[in-house]
Structure formats: C-alpha cells, structure tokens
C-alpha cells in the first residue's frame, strides 16, 4: 500500500478585502488515498470550495495569503511535491492533467462561444503532444465515455444546445480528458434535477471504478456524499469539525453541526407529522469569527466555557479513525445523538449537555474515558 495521493497539512487561506481579512480556510488537514472518495460537506462559506481551488492554485493572487502544505504524489517515483509552494507553470501542468475539477453550474462553466469538441480538444492539447485529429478522436471517445448519445454529432455542438445534465457530462468528460489521478467535484449535482443528480452520481461512481481515480466531492448535501464517498469530512468556518468513514458519520455522528445537517435531510421513512429541524442562526462571518468553538453561537448544547475554549480535532475515544472537534464529553454526545435519533428535539436534549458540564468538574470523566477504552 503506497502513501496518500494527496495530503493537505494545516492549510490556511485568507483574503484581504476592504471589509477586513476573510479567513476562508483555517488549518485544514486531510488525506486522500489513491482510488478513494472523500466527501467534504459544509454550508456556503465553510471554505470547502476555496480549499479545493487552492489545490489547483486558482486562489493565488495579490489579496490571498496561503500557508500550509498540499503534498501531491503525481508520480510515485518522484515522491510527493508541495502544490502550495509550486511555481505557476509547473502547477499549470498538473491542473487538468493529474488533478481535474468539475464545477457546480455546467452552463456558466463552459465557454458559450466554442463548440464542446473544441473545449475538450484544447484540454487534451494543453497537456499532450498529439495531433488535432487525434485530440478530436479523443473528444468523441470522451463524450461516449460519459454517456452522451451520438457523440460524433454532439462534438460539433455548442454548450447551449445541451441540457443541464448533458452539460455536466461534458464537464466530466473534460475533466477526464487526461486521465487524472484526482478529480475534484465541486457541487457537481447542485444545479441539476434530482433524477439527473442520481445519474451523474452513478456516472462518477462507475467512472471511478473503471479509471481508478480518487475523487473529492464537495457538497452541502449529505445525501450526495452518502452515495459515493468512502469518508466524510464536515467543514465549518474553514475547519474540519468531524471526519470519519461514511457509515460512521451516518450511524454515530459526533458533532452538533453534523447532527443538524443530518436532521435537516427529509427522509421517506420518517413519520409524516415529524418536522425537519433546521440549524438555527446564520453561517458565521469569516472576518470576525466567533470566539472559542466557532459553532457555539448556533449550538443548542453550548456551555459557558465553549465560548472561550477553541476545540481541537481529536480522535473519538474507542473509535479510531473518527475525529471530532467538540467540547462536549463523548458519552454525553452519544446520549444526545441517541435521543435525537429517536425523535426527540434538540431542546429536549439540551439539559444533558449541562449535566456534562457539572460532571466534567466532578470526577466523572475518568469513567467515561474508561468506558471508551473498553469498547
């Protein structure tokens, strides 16, 4: 087993604006192994897109401050190289070649004046020394690969002549043009109808199995990552607040924000009278971030000291590979989630958190820890 394909280490991205410094990404770390799928989940402004654009050097600019490392192992023999410090031209040769990206709105992401064939061809020609004829053949092959019927004819059409789903297929074809090792899909299905969403996700899944690339899916929609991700990282205010295998996140979520995301998904099997529970409040300002735990102004279980102490991402006791940044005790979190999962409201579960605070001062925590170790 080789090392990770990409390893993000303490990535920080901030932008100087007229209103102040926007801390878009604030100490992000994760790894993606070859051929696996990571889902990054979070709401608008959680830094999920910025972190991925930074991977490709697309956030570079006079206003941007970027630190940390993104170690990418394009070639196992050369070893990993840092994309953050890489010069522009070298990074350009990785973009669209080793790492490719697809975007949310496939209509605005395609150039309106050029035929899709030409837009596919130039992706090939930018990285490979092949004839135009060969590039065109490749373009037709790619359109077929992503399930566009009649690619011989469609190759000479303009983006506006395609439907939304077909356009996203074109974007995927473009991303696959040079057989990337990593595909970043930024909200790949958000602009599409639900039925088309499922088709696109199935397509991505199938292509991954055939081509063996790793995928990072960025979305606000847990349902999307549930379908295709092996691991999920939940981001809030530029940081990962919870990170675990997909089944773990759905079975035993640890962070109150993740609970909120899960409870705001409508489910077919829930009772008709059960209401969805929205996450109260608004996404935090990335200029004046909340003190302590960044989620505290919206957290139903907030305690006084959570407003001061900034939680670190730590392994959940007894659950290796499951990390969470939350100041609540592990057993309290487990009990709250059990209550929420059985249909109780956050308001009803709130007193449990206060109990945890008191028990935290008393010699109770060793008990909870030993419990964690034994399991």
């Amino acid at each position, binding site marked *: 087993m080789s090392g990770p394909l990409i390893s993000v280490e303490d990535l920080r991205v901030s932008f100087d604006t007229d209103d102040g410094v926007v801390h878009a990404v604030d100490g992000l770390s994760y790894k993606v192994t070859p051929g696996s799928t990571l889902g990054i989940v979070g709401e608008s402004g959680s830094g999920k897109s910025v972190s991925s654009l930074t991977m490709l050097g697309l956030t570079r600019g006079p206003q941007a401050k970027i630190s940390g490392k993104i170690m990418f192992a394009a070639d196992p023999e050369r070893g990993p190289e840092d994309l953050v410090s890489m010069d522009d031209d070298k990074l*350009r040769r990785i973009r*669209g*070649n080793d790492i*490719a990206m697809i975007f949310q709105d496939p209509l605005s*992401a395609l*150039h*309106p*004046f050029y035929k899709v064939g030409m837009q596919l061809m130039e992706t090939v020609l*930018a990285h490979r020394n092949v004839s135009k004829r060969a590039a065109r053949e490749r373009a037709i092959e790619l359109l077929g690969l992503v399930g566009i019927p009649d690619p011989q004819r469609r190759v000479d059409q303009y983006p506006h002549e395609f439907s939304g789903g077909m356009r996203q297929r074109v974007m995927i074809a473009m991303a696959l043009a040079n057989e990337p090792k990593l595909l970043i899909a930024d909200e790949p299905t958000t602009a599409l109808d639900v039925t088309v969403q499922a088709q696109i996700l199935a397509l991505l899944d199938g292509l991954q199995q055939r081509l063996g690339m790793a995928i990072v899916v960025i979305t606000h929609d847990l349902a999307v990552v549930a379908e295709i991700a092996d691991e999920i990282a939940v981001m809030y205010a530029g940081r990962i607040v919870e990170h675990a295998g997909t089944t773990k996140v759905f079975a035993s979520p640890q962070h109150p924000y993740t609970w909120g995301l899960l409870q705001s998904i409508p489910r077919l099997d829930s009772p008709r009278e059960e209401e969805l529970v929205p996450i109260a409040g608004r996404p935090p300002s990335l200029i004046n971030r909340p003190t302590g735990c960044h989620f505290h102004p919206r957290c139903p279980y907030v305690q006084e000291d959570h407003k001061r102490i900034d939680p670190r991402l730590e392994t959940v006791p007894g659950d290796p590979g499951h990390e969470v940044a939350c100041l609540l005790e592990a057993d309290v979190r487990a009990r709250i989630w059990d209550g929420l999962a059985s249909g109780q409201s956050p308001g009803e579960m709130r007193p449990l958190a206060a109990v945890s605070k008191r028990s935290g001062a008393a010699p109770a925590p060793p008990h909870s820890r030993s419990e964690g170790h034994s399991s």
Partner: protein
Amino acid sequence: MAAYIIRRVLWGIVTIVAVIFLTFLLFRVFPTADPATLLAGKGATTQRIAMIRQELGLNHSWLVQFWIYLKGILFHFNLGYSYYTQRSVLSEIGTALPATLSLTIGAVVLWILIGIPIGILSALKRGSIWDRTAMIGALTFVSMPTFWFGLILIYFFAQSLGLLQIFPGPGSYVGFTADPVKWFGALILPWLVLALTQAAIYSRLLRGNLLDVMGEDYIRTARAKGLPNRRVVYKHGVRSAITPVLTVLAIDLGALLGGAVITERIFEIHGVGLLNITAIGNSDFPVVQGTTVLAAVFVVVANIGVDIAYAYLDPRVRYT
C-alpha cells in the same frame, strides 16, 4: 436568418424614407433662410430673386417639391442638383466621400491599435500604476471636446501655425491618388484627433468588459484545465469581452462615414461632413438632403451589419 435579414432591410428602407421626409420638412417647410435670396447675392433685384425662385422650383407647393425630390432619387438616382454648383448631389458626394473615407478608416485603424491593447493590459494589470495612468489618460482624452483638442494639436504641431511645426496643418489635404505622401502627412493630425478620443472610450469599454469576463466561471474552467495563461486570456477572455466592442465599432464607423463634421471643418478636409455644413449655411437644400440621407444609410447599414455579424460572433444568437 434570411427572413430576418429581409425584414431588417425593409425596416431600414422605412427608416431612410422617414429621414428623407423629416429632413425635407425641416429645411423646406419650416422657416429657413431663402435660398433664392442667398443665391442672388447682395443688392439683387426682386425680379432677379423671383426668377431664381422659379428656376429652383421653389414656387411649387411643398408636396409637389417633395414628389420632384423623390423622383430624383427613384428615377434618376442623382439626389437632385446643387443650387450653387449645378452639379448633381451624387457627384458632389462622390467628390467628397474619398476624403471622409480616408479620414474615418485611418482613424478607426489607429484607435483600434491604441485602444484595444491598452484596454487589455489595463484589465490584466488592474490597479497597477500602468492601469491607473492609462485610465487617467483615457478620462482626459474622453473629456476633451474634438474642436478644442483639434485646435490644440494645430497650435502645437501644425507646420503653418504651430509652435513645433511638425505635421502639415489645416488645408493641406490632397487626394491619395494625387500624392500619397502628402495625403498621409495631411491626415496625421486629423487622425490623431479622432482616434485618441475614441481610443480612450474603447480602452475603457474593453477594460470593463474584460474584467467582468475574467470573473466568469468559464475562465475558471479554462484555468482549471491547465491551459497556458495566454490562451486563457486571449482565446477565452478577450474573445468574449471584445464582441460588444465590435458592435460599438460598427455603429461608430457608420456614424463617422456620414461625415466627421468637426474634424473636417477644423482641418479643412473637403469631405461629406464639410459638404453638409457648407450646404446648410447656403440653404443648398438638395445637398443638405443628399448628405443627410447618405449618413442615415450608413447608420442603418452599420446596424443591420452588426446584428448579422452578431449571429456569427455569438453562437447563442439566432434570428428568426
């Protein structure tokens, strides 16, 4: 597409007929200086003036006069005869048009060569010293009235009158066929007058468009594909940003071909614009109408041309 073009051309003809009628109304029905009196000169007898009125056909009712005028266009295609030179208006325009063409086309080439690169560089180096300097320069040139800027250039650079005496001044224009070198020299200052103001407008327009376009999603896609920066900027960015500029260009070109009145006047270039204002001063109605109609034709043709060109420049545009 064909149906669209036919419809546009028919409407264009309607527009031109309306222009003919309005010009006729303005100069012949509403009060103006009496052409017969002007033509007769100072101290002419009333009989002489009456005779001239008779000769010019000014005694007919204005409807009859309009019909005679339309006949001139439709059947003789000569736009009537000048009261002063007795030559057909068509041949008057034929004499004047080459000068206007030389002035306009040279200026257009010059302002494109200046305005487009400045616009692109300013957008790409937004906020830099270069951008600020260029945009302050552009604002300066946009703000200068042509008549004033023309006189300033003459004051500094014209050989006959200027302080530095570098370029030929007013009245030095000769036809290209007569003497290409003199033709070129005489047009340098007029070209500059027209081109610098327009270049300023075009550079600002292109800069703004390009800044908008470079923020588009498809530019991000082009970068994400790993295209070389030059290709991203020119093939993807400038290609989109320049399309609206071409529209403005065609309409400006149409308007200028109708006569760059002020520039021609200042530099005494006997083009269509100068022909037009001289005729207005003389109440030489047929010439006024002829030059006005010509200008209208250029504007209408330019507009139709732009709309047709747009279908080729932007594949999303389809006419039915």
